[in-house]
C-alpha cells in the first residue's frame, strides 16, 4: 500500500483516525496505530510481516544489550551486528535482488515499497542512539514496536529518532489545530504527488523517452525529471507529516527549501535531511571531527546513501561522483563560499547538478553519454520537438504553481502578501481563509477524481 492509493486515504486513514478518538489513553492509540501500520505494511504480502516483527525483537534485544555494553568494545560489535541485520532486511525487502521473480523464496513485490529503507534506517538509528547515549534502551517492547512499524514515516521519512518519538508514544493528545494542520498538510502532499509530479512526468517523457533527442528536450526533460523526483518526494514527506499530526505526532520536515548558498553541498542536503543527519552523526561519532575526515565522510556517505536509495551501478556511480564534488567543496571552496555572488553559485550548482543527478535516469552508460552529448547540441536534428512544446504549453499552469512552490523568494512574497491581507480586518480575513479552504478542498477533490480515473482506465 502507498500513501496515494484511494483505498489507503479514503479507507484506512479515516477509520484509523476515527477509531483512535474512542479512547484517550496512549496505549489504545498505540494499539490502533500498530494495527493500522500492520495492515498498511502487510497489504499484499502478509506473511512477510513476521519478518518485521522479528526485526523489532532483534532491535529490542540488541538495544538492551548495547545499553549495558556501550562503553566496551562489545558494544561496537553489537552495533555492527545490528547494522548487518538491517542491511539484510533492506536487501531482502527493499531491493529484492537475491531471489529471482517466480522462485519459491522470491518476495517479488517488495513488502514495503520504498519504506524498507526508512524502516531499516529507523531500526539502526535506535541502536545507534542507545550506543551514543542519546536515548535509553526501551524496556517496553510495545513502545518500540509502535515506533518501528508506525506507517507515517515508512514511505519517505523522516527518520524519526527514538529520543524524539518516545515522549509522544507514551503520552499524546490530538488537538483540533493538529487535526486541521494535519489534514491540510496531507492534502497539499497529495496534490504535489497526484497533480504536480505527473505534469513533470509528461514533460520528462516528451524530452527524454525517445532516441531522437532535441537540444531543448534534453535540458528541459532532465529538469522535469528532477522536478518529478522533488515533488514526488516532498509530496510524500508532506503526507507523512500530515498523517503524523492526525495521530498526535509532530515530526520535523524531511526536506528543506532548495538553496544554493552552500553550493552543491547545500543543494544535495535539501532532501532527506533527517537521514543525512543520521549519517553525519554516525561519521562524527566514529570518524572524528577534522575537516578531512568530515570530507571523507561526505564522500562515503554520498555513495552509501545512493546505494540506500537503489542498489545499482548508476546510483553508486552518481553517489560517488557527487561525493567527490562535496569533498572538493569542503576542502577547498568552503572559505570562498561566502564571497561568491549568489548568481554564480546558482549557475555553478545548475551546471553540476543537472549532469550528475541526470545519471540516475539512465540505466545504460551509452544512453547517458548520448544525452550528455545532446546537451551540447551533438546528435540533435532539432532544437525543440512539437511534443515537448505541447507538453510545456499543456502544463503551463502547473509549471507556474510548481515554480512558486520551489522558488523561495516568490513564495515568501506571495505568502507575506496574503498574511498582510488577512490582518487588514475581519472581512479580509474571512475572504482569505475561506478561499484557502475552498482551494484545499478543490485539490483534494481533483486528486481523488484523478486517482479514480486512473484506476478505472
Amino acid at each position, binding site marked *: 500500500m*502507498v500513501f*496515494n492509493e*484511494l*483505498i489507503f486515504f*479514503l*479507507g484506512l486513514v*479515516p477509520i484509523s483516525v476515527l477509531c483512535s478518538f474512542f479512547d484517550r489513553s496512549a496505549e489504545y492509540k498505540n494499539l490502533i496505530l500498530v494495527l493500522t501500520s500492520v495492515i498498511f505494511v502487510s497489504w*499484499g504480502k*502478509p506473511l512477510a510481516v513476521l519478518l518485521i516483527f522479528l526485526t523489532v525483537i532483534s532491535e529490542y534485544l540488541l538495544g538492551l544489550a548495547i545499553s549495558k555494553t556501550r562503553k566496551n568494545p562489545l558494544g561496537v560489535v553489537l552495533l555492527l551486528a545490528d547494522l548487518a541485520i538491517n542491511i539484510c532486511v533492506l536487501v531482502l525487502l527493499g531491493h529484492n535482488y537475491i531471489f529471482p521473480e517466480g522462485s519459491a523464496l522470491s518476495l517479488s513485490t517488495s513488502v514495503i*515499497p520504498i519504506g524498507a529503507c526508512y524502516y531499516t534506517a529507523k531500526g539502526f538509528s535506535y541502536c545507534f542512539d542507545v550506543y551514543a547515549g542519546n536515548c535509553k534502551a526501551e524496556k517496553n517492547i510495545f513502545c518500540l514496536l509502535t515506533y518501528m512499524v508506525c506507517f507515517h514515516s515508512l*514511505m519517505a521519512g523522516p527518520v524519526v529518532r527514538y529520543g524524539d518519538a518516545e515522549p509522544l508514544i507514551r503520552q499524546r493528545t490530538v488537538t*483540533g489545530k493538529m487535526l486541521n494542520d494535519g*489534514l491540510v498538510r496531507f*492534502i497539499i502532499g497529495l496534490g504535489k504527488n497526484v497533480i504536480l*509530479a*505527473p*505534469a513533470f*512526468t*509528461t*514533460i520528462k*517523457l*516528451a524530452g527524454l*523517452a*525517445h532516441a*531522437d533527442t532535441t537540444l531543448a528536450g534534453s535540458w528541459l526533460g532532465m529538469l522535469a525529471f528532477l522536478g*518529478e*523526483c522533488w515533488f514526488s518526494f516532498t*509530496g510524500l514527506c508532506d503526507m507523512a507529516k500530515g498523517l503524523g499530526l492526525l495521530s498526535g505526532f509532530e515530526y520535523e520536515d524531511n526536506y528543506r527549501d532548495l538553496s544554493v548558498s552552500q553550493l552543491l553541498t547545500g543543494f544535495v542536503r535539501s532532501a532527506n535531511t533527517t537521514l543525512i543527519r543520521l549519517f553525519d552523526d554516525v561519521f562524527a561519532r566514529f570518524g572524528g571531527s577534522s575537516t578531512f575526515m568530515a570530507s571523507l565522510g561526505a564522500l562515503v556517505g554520498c555513495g552509501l546513501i545512493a546505494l540506500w536509495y537503489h542498489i*545499482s551501478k*548508476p*546510483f553508486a556511480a552518481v553517489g560517488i561522483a557527487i561525493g567527490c564534488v562535496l569533498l572538493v567543496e569542503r576542502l577547498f571552496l568552503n572559505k570562498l563560499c561566502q564571497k561568491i555572488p549568489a548568481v554564480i553559485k546558482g549557475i555553478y550548482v545548475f551546471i553540476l547538478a543537472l549532469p550528475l543527478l541526470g545519471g540516475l535516469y*539512465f*540505466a545504460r552508460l551509452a544512453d547517458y553519454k548520448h544525452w550528455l552529448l545532446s546537451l551540447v547540441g551533438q546528435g540533435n536534428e*532539432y532544437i525543440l*520537438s*512539437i*511534443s515537448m512544446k*505541447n*507538453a510545456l504549453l*499543456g*502544463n503551463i499552469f*502547473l509549471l507556474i504553481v510548481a515554480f512558486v512552490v520551489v522558488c523561495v523568494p516568490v513564495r515568501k512574497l506571495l505568502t507575506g502578501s496574503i498574511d498582510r491581507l488577512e*490582518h487588514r480586518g*475581519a472581512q479580509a480575513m474571512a475572504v482569505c*481563509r475561506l478561499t*484557502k*479552504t*475552498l482551494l*484545499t*478542498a478543490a485539490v*483534494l*477533490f*481533483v486528486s481523488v*477524481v*484523478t486517482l*479514480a*480515473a*486512473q484506476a*478505472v*482506465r
Partner: protein
Amino acid sequence: MDREVTEFNLESYAHSEDIPEPPEEFEESEKAMAELTARSLDDKYSFINIVVLAVVLLACASYFLTMTSSKRYGDEGNKFSLERLANGKYTAEISRRYYSTIAYPEELTELSDSISSLYGVLDRSTAEQVRENTERLLPSDNSSGNGGGSHNEKEINTETGSGTGTETSASHYVETFYDTMFSRTTTIVTTLNFDPEDPYSRKTTTTINTAPDVKSTTTAVPTQTTAQTVSSEETTPSETEPTQTETETTPSETTPSETESSASETESSVEEEQPQPEADA
C-alpha cells in the same frame, strides 16, 4: 471608592492642559481584545476549514465504499483462508475489486478529463487534437523520423519453416502516460515457427521500443499456413497498434514513487491470442 470616582470633577480640567492621560491598561486591554478577536476568528475559520475538508474526505470515502458493487463485500470468489491471506491473494483481490467496481467509471473519466484540461495536463481528447495538429503542421518531421509525436516502426517478419522474411516500417503516434506523444522507434519482430504438420505452430511477436526498456512479446497460434498472409496482416497499421504496450506499461514505469527504477526495468508479457479469422482470407 466608587463614590470618590463619581465625585471626581472633570469639569475643572475642561479648559486646562493637564488633562490626565488614560491609564495604560486601556491600551493593553485593547490590544488583548484585538488579539482575542483575531484568535477567535482564526479558530472559527480553522473549524470551518476542518469541517469542509472532513466532509469532502468522508463524502469521497463513503462514495467509494457504498456506491460500488456489492460483490466486493461478499466472499464469492474471495473466501477468507489463512493460506490466501498469507500469500497475499486475499488482500490483492480486495484491492482489485475495490478499483474494478468503482461506480460510474465513464463519468469519472470524463470528469477527470475536463478537470485536467482546466489545469493543464493533456487529456485523451486533447491528445487526439494535438496529434491531428501535429500531423497537419509537421508532415516533413515524420519522414525524417524526428517529428513531434511521430512513431517510427520497423517490422521484421521471419518464418522458420519456409525461410522467408519480410521487413516493413510504419509511422504513427504513440500515446503515453497522460497522453503526451513523443517520437521513438519501435521494432516489431514477428517469428513464425511454422510446421505444416504441426497444428500448434506458434507466431511470436516481439516489440522492442527505444523508450527505457519497454519490450513485449506476444505469442499466438496462427491459423494460416503462408508467411505472406502473416506479413500482410502484421503490416496493417490497425493491427500493429495493439502490439504497442507503451500505453499500458508506461504508467506503471513512471509512477512517481518508483521513478528511479523506471529506467532500469524491463517488462515482458506473454499472452495467448485467439486466431484472427481475417488472416485466413
